[in-house]
């Protein structure tokens, strides 16, 4: 596609029509069999052949019109949504980002109070915060260290099974099992790290994808330990400093003189995962300002230069894998105690893909972006539940749009880990503009 930079160029209708016609032709070929022709079970049980040429025509026409409009008005290849926003608004927005994080946190803290009566929303909140935490964990590996990990669910699974097995077999409490699950997941991370030390990019992605599947298959087939496809039922529920959430005399409600309500446990679980997510966030932000975090980012930028500066890239990569895996393990342990039942079905590739999508959409390396992306994606999934299968279509389209127009994610800026002058002395707009020039 020719790139034209001058804004006042004449509309080239024939060229636009030609491009649109080609796109429409491709759409016809693609959707001709997918939508145009359909087989149904007829009344006699035999397959009946039906056609839906009307729907096909609508889709092809839509593709034609969209391509035509795009060719006419969005010809500039460097078009990006961010350019539509005036610089002054951007400056204000980046100033607001600090408040946005605080507002986000305040809202997250108040969710159980606002929605106390709504069990469904509380469960959704727990789900969103769990995935936010997974996103934070994966962000260390993908966003900071730049190691594309498609098998992150493996560590989630290791954490969940570690908790389930330790809690059931040794009767240890959630708060003792949690660090153990994290440590075991971190070991799994190092185990994965060793064979992939020399790999980067696509090759790394394939091996980590395989690792995720290996863990799932082990869980599925090691019947004696994991119960195989039957999973592990009856995982102990967490207690409030030894007080169980039940209707007994020694329960949480009785001790504090409250009426027993199953919501107590849900609220407690919500605050537990929120605390874990905030811990992950705090540690990540802290690590970014430490030499190890800077070494991770340097590794993402240029591994060879790192080695020339005396950085041991082996241990640096392994710590990134171990850190990311540890937080995945924490989240897994939480998942196990919340569900009370786990099976290999919960740890499929889809989970990895979802967490990775959250990290990529949120903006690699940005904590606020990841939290926002988790809320938008999972909240959106629930919001559009009635649209059934079409919601996947919508999310696919949204993702394509974001990858094209905001390739570095919703929050594409990177805050420097250290600065020479007071941070306020640097106009945010300049920093941002300069940053977009650097290769992503």
């Amino acid at each position, binding site marked *: 596609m020719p790139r034209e930079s001058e804004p006042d160029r004449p509309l080239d209708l024939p060229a636009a029509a030609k491009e649109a016609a080609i796109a429409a032709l491709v759409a016809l070929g693609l959707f001709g069999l997918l939508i145009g022709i359909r087989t149904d079970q007829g009344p006699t049980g035999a397959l009946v052949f039906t056609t839906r040429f009307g729907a096909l025509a609508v889709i092809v026409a839509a593709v034609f019109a969209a391509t035509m409009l795009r060719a006419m008005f969005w010809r500039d290849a460097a078009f990006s949504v961010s350019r539509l926003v005036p610089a002054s608004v951007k400056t204000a927005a980046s100033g607001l980002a600090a408040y946005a994080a605080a507002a986000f946190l305040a809202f997250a803290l108040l969710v159980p109070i606002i929605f106390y009566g709504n069990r469904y929303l509380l469960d959704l909140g727990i789900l969103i915060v769990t995935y936010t935490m997974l996103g934070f964990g994966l962000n260390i590996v993908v966003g900071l260290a730049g190691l594309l990990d498609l098998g992150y669910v493996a560590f989630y699974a290791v954490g969940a099974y570690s908790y389930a097995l330790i809690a059931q077999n040794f009767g240890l409490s959630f708060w003792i099992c949690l660090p153990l699950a994290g440590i075991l997941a971190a070991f799994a991370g190092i185990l994965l790290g060793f064979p992939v030390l020399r790999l980067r990019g696509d090759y790394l992605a394939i091996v980590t994808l395989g690792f995720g599947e290996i863990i799932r298959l082990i869980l599925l087939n090691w019947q004696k330990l994991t119960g195989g496809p039957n999973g592990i039922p009856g995982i102990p529920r967490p207690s409030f400093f030894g007080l169980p959430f039940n209707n007994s005399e020694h329960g949480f409600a009785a001790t504090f003189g409250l009426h027993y309500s199953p919501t107590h446990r849900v609220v407690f679980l919500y605050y537990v995962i929120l605390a874990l997510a905030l811990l992950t966030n705090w540690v990540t932000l802290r690590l970014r300002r430490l030499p190890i975090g*800077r070494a991770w980012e340097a590794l993402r930028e240029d591994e060879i230069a*790192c080695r*020339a*500066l005396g950085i*041991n*890239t082996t241990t640096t990569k392994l710590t990134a894998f171990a850190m990311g895996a540890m937080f995945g393990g924490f989240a897994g342990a939480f998942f196990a105690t919340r569900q009370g039942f786990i099976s290999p079905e919960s740890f499929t590739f889809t989970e990895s893909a979802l967490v990775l999508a959250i990290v990529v959409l949120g903006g690699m390396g940005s904590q606020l972006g990841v939290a926002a992306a988790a809320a938008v994606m999972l909240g959106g999934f629930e919001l559009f539940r009635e649209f059934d299968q079409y919601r996947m279509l919508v999310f696919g389209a949204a993702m394509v749009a974001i990858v094209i127009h905001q390739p570095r994610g919703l929050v594409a800026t990177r805050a420097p880990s250290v*600065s020479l002058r007071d941070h306020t002395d640097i106009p945010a707009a300049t920093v941002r503009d300069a940053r977009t020039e*650097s290769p992503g």
Partner: protein
Amino acid sequence: MSAAEPQTFQPLVLTVEHLTMRFGGLVAVSDLSFFARAREITALIGPNGAGKTTLFNCVTGFYKPTIGMLKLDHPDTGAWYLLERMPEFRIAREARVARTFQNVRLFAGMTLLENLLVAQHNALMAASGYTMLGLFGARSYARAQARAVDKARYWLDRVGLVERADDPAGALPYGAQRRLEIARAMCTDPVLLCLDEPAAGLNNRESAELNIFLRALRDEHGISILLIEHDMGVVMEISDRIVVLDYGEKIAEGTPGDVRNNPRVIAAYLGVADEEVAQAEAEAGL
């Protein structure tokens, strides 16, 4: 060939003996021996493909030589290292050999200051108690980081980039990126600084400034410099010694004056008539 005997005034910092580097059937460096003295600028010159960068990669550990010995001495402490036996990150950390790259390798998305702090990784890592102390905000780490920032500020100031300390490195113009890369290498406290074509792509004024800067590194900071350079203006002006490579072999070494008049060097660079080649080879004892 063997390394020439060390002269009187400065001790050796790098001794290369019988270095050979083969890539399959290609011999990039063949039985090369030379030395570099401490607190001197030693230039490696030669036509394209002469094996200069390969030699650099051997010295800095990115390639493991097929045959040969690379010995690095710390003139102040007397410690010595056999570079061919060390992985590259230990060469940078322990033997303290820093390098720059022919095609600049900065951390483009990070600020200038961050680039220079990454260069001080090992010192800061130890100060942060391998992350544990730093994670809990220990005072000692804060002080170590403040010292590291001061050092970074010093080097940014030396290369004239202190005003842009908080800009991303990728946004700098090319000449400034080259200077930043040298500043970053200096932040590792090197004994030997290896510069791969530092003047490439610089204009005359920038290249003159580079000359002054490299001399200052040698005279004020006592750094030994190993330099690959095509810009003869730079090489002849600042080098204390020059080693000339052609087809992976050393064809001459000595002071700029010696090398400039050496017929084999002239032949390698300019090409000569056939009878002059024969004559030059006869003179050089081939």
